[in-house]
């Protein structure tokens, strides 16, 4: 028997939606083969469920373990895993949830999932030393408009129209009590400081400046973006806040 039949047969039964029997020509069939197929199917599904549970603890808590398992199972069929980086299997889960009909009533859920992905990316990002706040503040004050500002590799900028950060923060630990949500959207900087991933809610102008800097735009242009986001904001106040965030690793005044 060509050994390609072995690979085809096993992949087929593992990915199949319904419990399938191993083709008898491949493994003799019989009850032991059926049990063996069940073990392989369970192993694969359980490992990806564990990966999603590890990546999305707050989504899991918000929808409950049973619904989460259901969604994870449907995600497995919609997006069969394609990478050996199992911890990153959930990268498409937020987009999947946004289209997932049974969760359509929870408009904030995809954004909470997106925030959990940003947390994961920040947690595993490369190391770099950020400049101390006081030094950053002095350097930014006299930096020319053409200056290029490097952000820490772990810096992730997250915006949600659905107060996803407040919902995430409230449910991160099993808190009780009600949560008052503001009507406007939320902007957050996620950045790792030493070994801890920190979340900083930001004013729209500060967020806009950091977003522009993260795209490699020069300081003057980034500050312009901040003033578009909030015409009443003042550049020195924006720079003062940014300096306090431990998010800048280099200031290049040559530009």
């Amino acid at each position, binding site marked *: 028997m060509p050994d390609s039949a072995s690979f085809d047969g096993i992949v087929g039964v593992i990915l199949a939606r319904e419990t399938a029997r191993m083709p008898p020509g491949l493994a003799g069939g019989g009850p032991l083969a059926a*049990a063996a197929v069940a073990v392989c199917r369970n192993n*694969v599904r359980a490992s990806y469920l564990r990966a999603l549970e590890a990546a999305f603890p707050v989504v899991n808590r918000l929808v409950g373990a049973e619904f989460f398992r259901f969604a994870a199972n449907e995600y497995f069929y919609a997006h069969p895993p394609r990478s050996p980086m199992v911890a990153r299997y959930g990268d498409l889960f937020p987009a999947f949830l946004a289209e997932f009909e049974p969760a359509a009533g929870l408009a904030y859920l995809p954004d909470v999932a997106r925030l959990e992905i940003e947390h994961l990316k920040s947690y595993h990002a490369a190391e770099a030393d950020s400049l101390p706040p006081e030094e950053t503040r002095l350097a930014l004050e006299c930096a020319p408009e053409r200056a290029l500002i490097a952000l820490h590799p772990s810096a992730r900028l997250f915006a949600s129209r659905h107060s996803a950060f407040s919902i995430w923060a409230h449910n991160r630990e099993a808190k009780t009590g009600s949560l008052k949500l503001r009507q406007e959207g939320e902007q957050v900087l996620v950045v790792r400081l030493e070994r801890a991933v920190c979340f900083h809610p930001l004013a729209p102008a500060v967020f806009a400046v950091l977003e522009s800097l993260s795209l490699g735009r020069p300081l003057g242009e980034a500050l312009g973006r901040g003033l578009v986001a909030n015409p009443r904001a003042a550049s020195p106040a924006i720079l003062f806040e940014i300096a306090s965030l431990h998010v800048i690793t280099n200031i290049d005044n040559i530009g």
Partner: protein
Amino acid sequence: MSALPSLSIPARSAGIGLKPPHYKAALRGGHGLDFFEAHAENFMGDGGPPHHWLAAFRAEYPISLHGVCLSIGGRDDLDRDHLRRLAELVRRYEPALVSEHLAWSADGGVFLNDLIPPPLSQTSLARVERHVTQTQDALGRRILIENPSAYLALNGNDIPEPEFLNELARRAGCGILLDINNVYVSAMNLGFDASRYIGAIDPAHVGEIHLAGHALDSLDGVEIRVDDHGSRVRDEVLAIYEAFIAAAGPRPTLVEWDTNIPSFEMLAGESRRVTAAMRAAPFRGHIDTAA
């Protein structure tokens, strides 16, 4: 030039697989363990806490790096990006041992994250040899290949697994990571004699031993042993291990416990318990496990 202390794993060593809940207790010391094994894929991010911890262990103990996702037994070409990530880890941490599995987990671009035994045919042997050679070339060092646990007797397997592993080691110059729990699980599921399998392995190739617990499940009335690494090492497995060590001499021996993870003290105690005979034996020979 490397800044890391050169740490090798002597033959008469006991270790455990690294689990995040145990990091702090393990680094406090006083547990009698000689080495720790890290799953390579858990440390393939660019930075962050996982690397902080692995570096802390590497500064104090020899490390064994155990890959689980390279799919060396598969018919797809090896994933070059993944091989590059593994090579980068080996360069960064200079582990005393590096191992992977006689198994496949990827096929046709789909990744299944399970260790599925490859067909045991001449075609498969040639392919696995090519993959092991490619891996060793990329890492610039020898690796060990672990025997898988099997649930399914594939038709068309025409080379007994121990012979397949011996021949692979001879041709590719790799070693064997002998997982005695896997041998026992396969033997019970497929109906062969575990001791005879172990007796057929050439001990000269064996550079490390894995021990673990497994579950006895019943699916639709069929009993099946599931290699879940979720309990203590069973007495039957321990007896086979002690017989191997008595005949072949000591080998670095690792206890894996990946589900229902116990306290660090219990896991360290389990490692000391199962290796007590090996550590007490008067074997004086020298075995070069890293070669």
